[in-house]
């Protein structure tokens, strides 16, 4: 678990704009948190972490999906926080990163943990001391999270959209 003990972790801190110059969605992990004071040291101190615990308003700011791509490329599968900015929240689901919303009062305790485990299917976060925190994923976006396919889902709707447009 990677503790990012601050609120308002914005997308410029997750990946600064000067790394947005590519056309691919892969290989961006090396830029993760390079815009955050102490970001590189934090990552080094927690090798192999797949879950981030942070505070309010995670992912605020830019629409850059590079924020989600850089997290995914670095092996992160979930961010646990009391709240998320909308665009990051959508981008996370579309890239296999679960935005796990838990009560703000739980965050202090979670930040102290060394290892957390999450069952995305069952929507449960397991603390080190055996505590279970139940959370709720968006029932539609959960499909995108577990099996990918936001684009494929929309592609399957194209006919319905054309019919809707014809009748509109």
């Amino acid at each position, binding site marked *: 678990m990677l503790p990012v003990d*601050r609120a*308002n972790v*914005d997308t*410029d*801190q997750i990946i*600064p*704009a*000067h790394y*947005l*110059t*590519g*056309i*691919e*969605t892969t290989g961006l992990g090396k830029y993760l948190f390079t*815009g*955050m*004071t102490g970001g590189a040291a934090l990552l080094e101190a927690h090798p192999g972490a797949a879950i981030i615990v942070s505070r*309010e*308003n995670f992912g*605020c*700011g*830019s*629409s*850059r*999906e590079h924020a*989600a791509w850089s997290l995914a490329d670095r092996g992160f599968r979930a961010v646990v926080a009391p*709240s998320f*900015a*909308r*665009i990051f929240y*959508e*981008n996370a689901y*579309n*890239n296999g990163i679960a935005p796990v919303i838990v009560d703000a009062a739980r965050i202090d305790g979670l930040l102290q943990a060394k290892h957390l485990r999450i069952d995305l299917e069952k929507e449960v976060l397991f603390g080190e001391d055996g505590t279970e925190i139940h959370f709720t994923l*968006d*029932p*539609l*976006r959960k499909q995108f999270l577990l099996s990918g396919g*936001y*684009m494929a*889902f*929309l*592609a399957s*709707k*194209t006919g*319905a*959209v*054309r019919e*809707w*447009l014809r009748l*509109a």
Partner: protein
Amino acid sequence: MSRSLFEKVWDAHIVESLPGDNALVFVDRVVAHEITTPQGALEIERKYGDKLFDPARIVAINDHVSPAKDTETAIQAKVLRDWAKRHGIVLYDIGKNGICHVVAPERGYVEPGMTLACGDSHTCTLGAFGAFALGVGSTTQGGAMLAGCLVLQRPKVMRITIDGRLQGGATAKDLALHVIATLGFKGGTGYVLEYAGSTIAALSMDERMTLCNMAIEAGATTGMCPPDETTFSYLRGRENQPTGDAFERNVERWRTLVADADATYDAEIALNVDNLRPMVSWGTNPGEAVPVDGAVPAGANDASLRYMDLSPGTALRSLALDQAFIGSCTNSRLSDLRAAADVLRGRTVSIPTIVTPGSQAVKRAAEREGLHDVFQDAGALWTHSSCGPCLGMSMGVLAPGARCISSSNRNFPGRMGTGGRVHLASPAVVAASAVLGRIGSPEELAPVAEAVPA
């Protein structure tokens, strides 16, 4: 049933309801720029036979780093250019481009009642027209290009009623900073901000765009202003708009896009701006702002204070500056440049000052009025149109510790360059500060001696 402006636009675009309070929302227009479009376009090319739902609904603009600064950004521009050409998509490129949120409306691509998506968080700017304008990620934008729709959880609606007269140097930018300071940096999360009231009715389209531009800085899904005669006049006769009866028929339809008198909202706030002062941000999010003659507040967030090298009680006017920037999708339209020029006319800047028009069309209009001479006579740099220094991507990047006053929208740590410090303000306050070399307002400047004709 009575409905808000947002609900009228939303209801007219729902293709179907989806689980989890989500909906499949039809997208009338996609604005595509070179930083966030190639990824989705390439996925469509690889997996979906390069088929787009309707290329005529897309407008492409090379905007963030144009002309390219290096090989990578040149490739981004080329991918957008080749893709647009292949699909017959209109492209605004070098020579006639600019910031997408400035170019799209000035070229007539934004209308009341429209849904619009773009891979850029400041797409909310275009809610000024009474459109539902949504900033989205590349995948969501790609989905809209592929299937003509997107998935969105239905947002709540907050009505923000604003009355009173903007005076004493207060502008739409100050109003935007005041709204964010009132709501808090994430106080708008989950909401569409639907603006109402006499102050909004009196704003020009440029000013409404400035206000709506910063809805995202309160975390809001977007901002919206009710369309009215100001909106219709802006669009009448504009390129890419119909003319004559066809346009007037649209106007009749657009007139219905106002909130019903007894519409209900999920949240409501009312503000009076008679006493609003020009605002300047002191911290590391746009909600951390106070009047220009104010001080860093007691109880300010430690992390913000440390990053900005400030202490509670420090007067903003005591802060020496290293750079000034006038531009960005918030404040780079002609009226913004006029406001800055009015301050700089006959004066000299004392720190490096960059003035970047929002589009080449704005640049040419400004030059027809001689504003480029005003800026350059004052010692400022007058550049081509671009996103410019706002996001630290190309020109005007700040050195660590450098302090910049900027008419842009974000003061996040590192936003304009690693370790750089950003104070947000209106174009007039940025211009005055550029003269003073410290944060200050136009009223502090000594009068300019009038030139006496020989």
